[in-house]
């Protein structure tokens, strides 16, 4: 039972991947910190943009941790795949789980349900795909320059 989850970590100038990580609050928080470190290390983003990206992916991970596996006793897993497209100068982040979210359109009380509006407001493009295999959030940001490219072009 413990061995059913496979975890894979990739962190380099093009990609950030965490596959099969636990869909819980602590893992969401740790992964957000690792993702933020990846952004800082490899890309030149102003404080607003970098704050936007980190909050948006946090909300995607938090939704998985909070909603994806409500009908299961044990926590399921989630994946985050992020990559930089050098041609498009864009960052795309895919956060997915194999569970089913509660219908996001009807937040039970007013203090809840701001994750999706936040993701939409903070990214250049956001889409959520739900199927019987799970839920996948895709977030995109344009005009993201890698650190190395920026310093090279200065010469």
């Amino acid at each position: 039972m413990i061995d059913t989850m496979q975890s894979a970590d990739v962190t380099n100038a093009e990609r950030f991947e965490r596959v099969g990580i636990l869909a819980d609050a602590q893992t969401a928080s740790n992964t957000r910190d690792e993702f933020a470190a990846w952004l800082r290390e490899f890309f030149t983003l102003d404080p607003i943009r970098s704050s936007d990206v980190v909050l948006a992916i946090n909300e995607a991970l938090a939704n998985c941790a909070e909603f994806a596996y409500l009908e299961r006793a044990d926590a399921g897993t989630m994946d985050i795949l992020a990559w930089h497209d050098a041609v498009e100068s864009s960052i795309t982040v895919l956060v997915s789980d194999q569970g089913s979210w509660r219908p996001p359109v009807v937040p039970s009380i007013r203090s809840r349900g701001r994750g999706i509006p936040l993701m939409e407001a903070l990214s250049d493009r956001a889409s959520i795909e739900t199927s019987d295999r799970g839920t996948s959030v895709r977030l995109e940001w344009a005009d993201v320059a890698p650190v190395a490219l920026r310093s090279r072009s200065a010469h």
Partner: protein
Amino acid sequence: MDEQREAVVDKAAADDTTASSGSTCVVSERSVDEVVVVAASGVIDMLTAPQFGEALRAALEKKPEQLVVDLTEVEFLASAGMGVLVAAHEEAGSATRLCVVAEGPATSRPLKLVGIADIVPLFATVDEAVASLRG
């Protein structure tokens, strides 16, 4: 002007040690010109939001006329924390005038983006908030 009667709120300090990642939130309560100020610092995400909410509820239970929630030292504010703010605002009702102090890309920006700044009065500094509440 700032009286700095810093009293660490109940469980806040103790709970901090439970967060093994960067999710650490410290909540303290003080009084500025007789206005109660609950200040949070660090990270308010789904791990620490309950602790933040508890501190706000504890402050509201005393039914102060005004309550300033100071997020100046908050470096990350997730929707879980925003939900706590809205809940506190609702709990404050007509008994307590509640407002929020936040400035910057990690706090005031998302609060404005999702329209919380339209529900809860938002100020850039504690002095501005206090002046408004007392005015």
